[in-house]
């Protein structure tokens, strides 16, 4: 007989069916996976990481390092589920990790025999010769705990929500309840969180009388009072991290197969009432299943009616023995007691503890319930920057100095007395100083030498010998110890192993523990699912694309949509990409085409200083631009690098519209704002980004004028009246329009901008007048035929204006402008700069791959930035950046691409209508 369910009370409870390693079992409502397993007598719940030693349940909640499972339910599989803190649900399929075929009969159990040859640091000393790669695959296969399930989560993955309160109380035990009640009573907006399904904490784990009443009777009035005062109580909610500016991350769990919730709580004050856990006793074979946390066993008894053994030995302080012993006796167990200082103690058994042996003595035991003292849960305290101080009497790190907005009360600060915990909570909530802790005499908990292995980290298989070896090899800093032995790096993050590891190290070094120090606790306090962090941001909600008001029209015409510069735009129209693109190019060159240019930036710059301001921000001179005219220009960085190109149109003396590339609208707007507020008078120049208020329909092609004329905009469209690079205002159907004669295709073009909601009518009208829609791919080819660049594609992060042959402003503009000094640095004047050129292939050759490199003597001297088969010209064209390219005209160069060489000739970067007759038409 080992563990079993006792009380009759559970007889009426709802039964929950589940399987463990394939075996059908039953639990009752309210069970955790671990309590259900213990309730039916399962001892071995898993295998340890390194040696595949059998592992049983150690703790009653999140301090357990052993009961880790892969769990499936309703099509959802989760790896590494902590069985001691996960509620059992009907139908769960529970599988032990790191074992095969089952936890009980694990084929790799024999690994333990090799343990003398697998010391700490084993891998650093081995497998260097001939090569780590020969050994690593086999080692990787052995590692890992659970298996990632096959199911793919469909986003969104769960709720992320912000919240705030005056006082956040973490932990619903006596101290936390007391604090929350007092704070709520004082009129504070209080939130109390507890990771259990109900509040009460240690009162439910190990009940004792409060104010002469049973704990359950005491708890309800507290929660009632908290709620009545407007406080909120959140169960199944774990505070797992405290971050800067008092932000506390809360993980709220829900039924297994549903999405979890991440609450980011901004708290004015935080009261930590996180309690304390048992510190294991280090003795020989103390990793055998059946060796358990004393308070864990008490929790199983009182929360789940599970008695963890019938022949129990208590290994704990006299105070604990007096408190807990009778509880287990009343439940029907035989209870024996061994003092903590028992020499030569070791557990005996295979797969589970059967007896304890010490000296010449030996007695039977099916459960050994241990507590070498209490370890306060100070993790959150440390996240927030709180300091720790070693308390030799309690054998624990207690909170020292900490941030003002944080208090720590009850067991979490070392107060293990119920009255003091309640008093602590009240005082913290009402701004009083807590009563000092009584000093206590140390317990004799230093591990005694033993021939049997004494385990410190149960999941990662770290023993006292490993610690000794690390110290012997001078891994004497606690961080070195942790990293060298993996002590405390398991999924429980050292909750049970930390202090025992430090104690063992201190013994080896002959130093007090206070001088050895401790490692930092880092969030999360308990592991949290990655899906918490995705929230609703899956698929199209990551970097969502901007959408044109004309998209329905474009889709109706067969537009194939794709992403261009942060917008969803038509790549081409129709089913067959290649033919479509060629036809669209021909349409623009020979007839009339239309395209949606709504995404181009429209940034209004207004005010008496607008002209001078733009003159400073842009490379090109803007101050002398006449009203009604448009100028092309570059925006440079202060290094002199081209950031964006665009056109500036001057509407009147004090009003400009800057049109930048689609992908740079917010960037250009931000830069304009930055300079406006730095070195300019922000009351005399204003920047309005109105890109989304206007939509733009571009009509382009030799017959564009006929189409635009038929729109009856009230504008004289003749070339003499409305020249290339100018702007006119008109109306369409009563709505104001701005018409720009600029051209990205090289053909006669009119860009007609109109209020967004009027654009669909305009678009339909232009289409009815015979213009054919063209997509971005054709547009891209048309511009390349003209040698027009796309910033960021045909330029890179080193390109300056002179590399494109545009040296006028650099040499002549006298007023300062952004980038002017950068254009005078040694790198700007150096030879060997990469310059933009055209690239031609030999007659009959195929097009160059974009991304191919131009080489000289086997070294790269540049690369192909754009390359197309020109439908207009019937042969390939390409643009590239080449070192000193502008002085290498007509040179033949080798082109390298993925191991193959071919040849190309440097030519001027314009193939079509170099004089510009067509766009000026």
């Amino acid at each position, binding site marked *: 007989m080992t563990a079993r369910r006792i009380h009759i009370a559970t007889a009426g409870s709802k039964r929950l069916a589940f399987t463990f390693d394939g075996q059908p079992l039953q639990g009752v409502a309210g069970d955790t996976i671990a309590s259900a397993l213990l309730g039916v007598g399962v001892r071995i719940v898993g295998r340890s990481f390194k040696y595949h030693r059998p592992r049983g349940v150690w703790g009653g909640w999140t301090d357990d390092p052993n009961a880790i499972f892969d769990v499936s339910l309703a099509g959802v599989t989760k*790896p590494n589920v902590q069985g001691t803190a996960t509620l059992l649900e009907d139908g769960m399929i529970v599988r032990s990790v790191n074992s095969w075929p089952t936890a009980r009969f694990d084929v790799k159990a024999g690994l333990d025999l090799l343990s003398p040859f697998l010391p700490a640091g084993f891998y*650093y000393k081995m497998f260097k010769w001939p090569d780590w790669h020969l050994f690593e695959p086999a080692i990787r296969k052995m590692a890992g705990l*659970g298996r990632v399930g096959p*199911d793919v989560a469909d986003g969104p993955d769960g709720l992320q929500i912000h919240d705030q309160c005056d006082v956040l109380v973490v932990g619903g035990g006596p101290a936390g309840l007391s604090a929350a009640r007092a704070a709520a009573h004082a009129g504070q907006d209080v939130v109390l969180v507890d990771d259990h399904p109900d509040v009460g904490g240690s009162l439910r784990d190990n009940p004792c009388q409060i104010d002469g009443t049973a704990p359950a009777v005491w708890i309800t009035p507290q929660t009632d009072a908290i709620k009545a005062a407007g406080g909120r109580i959140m169960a199944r909610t774990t505070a797992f991290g405290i971050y800067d500016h008092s932000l506390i991350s809360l993980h709220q769990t829900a039924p297994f197969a549903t999405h979890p919730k991440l609450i980011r709580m901004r708290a004015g004050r935080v009261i930590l009432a996180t309690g304390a856990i048992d510190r294991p006793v280090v003795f020989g074979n103390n990793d055998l299943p059946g060796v358990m946390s004393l308070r864990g066993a008490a929790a199983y008894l009182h929360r789940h009616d599970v008695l963890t053994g019938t022949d129990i030995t208590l290994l704990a302080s006299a105070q604990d023995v007096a408190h807990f012993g009778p509880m287990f006796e009343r439940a029907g167990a035989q209870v024996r007691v061994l003092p903590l200082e028992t020499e030569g103690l070791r557990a005996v058994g295979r797969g589970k503890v059967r007896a304890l042996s010490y000296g010449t003595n030996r007695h039977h035991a099916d459960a050994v319930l241990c507590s070498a003292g209490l370890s306060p849960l100070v993790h959150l305290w440390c996240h927030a920057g709180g300091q720790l101080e070693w308390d030799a009497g309690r054998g624990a790190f207690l909170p020292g100095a900490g941030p003002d907005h944080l208090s720590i009360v009850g067991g979490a600060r070392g107060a293990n007395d119920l009255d003091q915990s309640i008093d602590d909570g009240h005082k913290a909530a009402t701004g009083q100083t807590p009563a000092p802790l009584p000093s206590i005499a140390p317990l004799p908990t230093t591990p005694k030498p033993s021939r049997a292995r004494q385990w410190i980290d149960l999941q990662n298989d770290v023993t006292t010998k490993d610690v000794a070896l690390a110290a012997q090899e001078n891994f004497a800093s606690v961080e070195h110890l942790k990293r060298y032995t993996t002590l405390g790096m398991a999924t429980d*993050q050292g909750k049970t192993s930390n202090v025992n590891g430090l104690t063992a190290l201190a013994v080896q070094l002959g130093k007090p523990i206070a001088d050895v120090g401790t490692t930092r606790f880092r969030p999360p306090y308990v592991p949290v699912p*990655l899906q918490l962090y995705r929230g609703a941001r899956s698929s199209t909600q990551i970097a969502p694309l901007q959408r044109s008001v004309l998209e329905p029209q474009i889709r109706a015409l067969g537009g194939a949509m794709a992403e261009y510069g942060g917008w969803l735009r038509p790549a081409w129209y129709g089913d067959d990409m290649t033919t479509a693109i060629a036809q669209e190019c021909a349409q623009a060159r020979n007839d009339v085409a239309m395209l949606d240019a709504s995404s181009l930036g429209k940034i209004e710059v207004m005010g008496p200083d607008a002209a001078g301001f733009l003159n400073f921000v842009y490379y090109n001179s803007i101050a002398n631009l006449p009203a009604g005219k448009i100028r092309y220009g570059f925006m440079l960085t202060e290094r002199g690098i081209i950031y964006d190109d665009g056109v500036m149109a001057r509407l009147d003396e004090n009003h400009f519209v800057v049109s930048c590339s689609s992908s740079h609208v917010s960037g250009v707007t931000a830069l304009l704002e930055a300079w406006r507020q730095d070195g300019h008078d922000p009351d005399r120049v204003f920047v309005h980004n109105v890109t989304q208020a206007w939509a733009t329909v571009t009509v382009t092609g030799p017959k564009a004028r006929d189409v635009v004329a038929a729109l009856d905009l009230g504008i004289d469209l003749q070339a003499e009246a409305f020249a290339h690079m100018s702007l006119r205002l008109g109306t369409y159907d009563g709505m104001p329009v701005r018409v720009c004669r600029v051209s990205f295709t090289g053909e006669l073009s009119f860009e007609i901008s109109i209020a967004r909601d009027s654009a669909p009518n305009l678009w339909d009208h232009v289409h009815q007048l015979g213009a054919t829609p063209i997509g971005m791919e054709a547009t891209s080819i048309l511009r390349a035929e003209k040698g027009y660049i796309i910033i960021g594609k045909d330029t890179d992060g080193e390109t300056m204006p002179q590399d494109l042959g545009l040296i006028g402003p650099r040499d002549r503009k006298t007023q300062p402008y952004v980038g002017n000094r950068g254009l005078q640095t040694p790198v700007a004047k150096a030879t060997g700069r990469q310059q933009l050129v055209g690239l031609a292939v030999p007659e009959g050759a195929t097009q160059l791959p974009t991304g191919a*490199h131009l080489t000289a003597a086997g070294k790269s001297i540049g690369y192909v930035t754009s390359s197309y088969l020109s439908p207009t010209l019937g042969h390939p064209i390409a643009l590239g950046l080449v070192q000193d390219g502008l002085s290498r005209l007509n040179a033949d160069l080798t082109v390298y691409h993925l191991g193959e060489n071919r040849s190309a000739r440097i030519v001027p970067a314009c193939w079509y209508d170099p004089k510009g007759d067509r766009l000026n038409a």
Partner: protein
Amino acid sequence: MKYSAFSILREGLRGHRGWAKAWHNPTPKDTYDVVIIGGGGHGLATAYYLAKNHGVSRVAVIEKGWLGGGNTGRNTTAIRSNYFYPQSTALYDLSVRLYEDLSRELNYNVMFSQRGIMTLAHSEPDMEMAARQVNAMQLGGVDAELLNRDQVRKYAPLLNFRDDARFPIHGATWQGRAGTGRHDAVAWGYARAADSLGVDIIQNCAVTGVLIEGGVCKGVETSQGLIRAGKVGAAVAGHSTNLADMAGYSLPIHSYALQAFVSEPVKPVMNTVALSPALGVYFSQSDKGGIVVGGGLDRVPSYGQRGNTPMHDVVLGGLVEMAPILAKVKLLRHWGGIVDVTPDSSPIIGPSPVPGLYLNCGWGTGGFKAIPAGGYLFAHLLARDSHHEISRPFDLDRFQTGHLIDESAASGIAH
């Protein structure tokens, strides 16, 4: 004492009583030929190469905490040389080549695992940029391949190949020689080897001042007293400007927190390293089974060795988009290191404005992979007072000439 299978066997049979200290705890001497400030990977490697390659053995490494406790022990352990500019390729590939033999050279298994790194291309323009990158590397003599979608799937089937993936996978650049290493082992291996060559490694010793006489750096004041030195080398990632303040010069460096994340161990699901520039995430799986995840810098300049939550959503949320089957794997731990960030995200190796004081800093997010090269080149500079040709372009003077080495086009994550 040599580490080998034989020594393991022997010690296993006699209870491991024979293992010697990996390094000693010397008290500082009054004077050294070279004092290295910073007992991280770069500092320890510099000391090792000074002693081994240049015969300079009166060397001290001064560490304010425990050796390897800075960014060396806080990173995501990626090692690669998939860079675009030839200057970068030369630097980082020197490092990869040194790593390839490091375990045997140091007699310490640093577990350099050449499992390959892929940088995903999420669109046709990305593929063109990937080709530009691969060609640059191939021409620079570094291994690189351009993978198509199916090849990526073969290497990493857990990636998001769904139709609704925000950033579909078109292909990737691939460097097969790249991979991961065991970060602590690199520090420990160099420390043990340097110690055995007579280098003094002085832990728990903080530099409190720089001794400058006649405008020349002559040593350092420390919490363990004044230590004179023929030359002083600073390898204090994250705190380079604090040292500059002590010595009276300025640096183009800003300190940021860089976070890293590891999940609970799971059975192998990912055998390579994958980076998505669009999502700003990369990850691999450690030999122990943890999913190791990294991303970009925090938004707020910081010396706090901890991270902020907005980057958690970006990086971990991005990871779930990148590899949706990891949604239910749990985050075990996250932490932050303080990194030196330069304007071009390339390191600074060279003399400081104060004669006698030399700089190895500015590695940004990429310091771990460069440890062997950083140490090798810094040792050369300190021993000979002149640059190795590979480190010359990384001199501080590049910010005046404008010859920046900005790789932002080569890798999607600012590094």
